[in-house]
């Protein structure tokens, strides 16, 4: 289990290889990668700054991963979140989960990114042709995380 906050890019193939290393029981790997889009809320995005709250960030991500491991039958999970200056098509975040079977790996990966989106202290500021703006939180993110609080079937 690992969480990392970094300014540099990541290679998903290398990260998966490291996560799987020394565990030949792994049968399923599910990953989510979030990337910078060149449009958001109908405006062109030229560049983006990812800010976080050092000290709290790793603690919040750790807590989310610990919850996922308690809740789902998985082997391991990794979260990498970039901060600093990013441009359209850049990778922002990686969530990777390994398990014996795919059901738990899918659920855990989605659980982690849903919680990250509502509980981890990151903020996006976009540069658009009309100026800089802080990105608004999406209500669909709150709905996504609420689903895990009522859904006991998955």
């Amino acid at each position, binding site marked *: 289990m690992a969480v990392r906050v970094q300014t540099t890019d990541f290679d998903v193939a290398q990260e998966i290889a490291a996560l799987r290393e020394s565990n030949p029981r792994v049968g399923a790997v599910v990953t989510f990668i979030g990337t910078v889009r060149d449009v958001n809320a109908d405006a062109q995005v030229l560049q983006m700054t990812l800010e976080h*709250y050092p000290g*709290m960030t790793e603690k919040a991500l750790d807590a989310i991963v610990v919850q996922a491991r308690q809740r789902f039958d998985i082997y391991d999970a990794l979260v990498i979140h970039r901060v600093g200056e990013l441009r359209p098509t850049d990778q922002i975040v990686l969530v990777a989960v390994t398990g014996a079977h795919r059901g738990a790996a899918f659920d855990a990966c989605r659980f982690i990114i849903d919680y990250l*989106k509502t509980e981890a*202290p990151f*903020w*996006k500021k976009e540069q658009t042709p009309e100026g800089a703006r802080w990105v608004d939180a999406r209500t669909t993110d709150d709905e996504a995380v609420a689903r895990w609080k009522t859904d006991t079937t998955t």
Partner: protein
Amino acid sequence: MNDTAIRHTLTVNVVYLARLREAFGSAGEPLQLATATATVNDVLTALASRGGAFATELAAGRAVRVAVNHTLVSREARVQQGDEVALLPPVTGG
């Protein structure tokens, strides 16, 4: 703490993040409260009473979350001498 009986004020370190840092023109500050015990709500009320951007951004109904010593807490949570009390606008990572 053993010294609460003799202290009549409480100082916490407030941290302003992202949009709030820009709105307040500050990354944070020590805040002294004129009481020996206080909650997160008391901290927010003391800040909002300054008026201006503080009153606007911390008005009832505005989506601001609070972390004490790096853990999200409710408005009713107690704050202690020396705590780091961070004010977080809605997060948008991922």
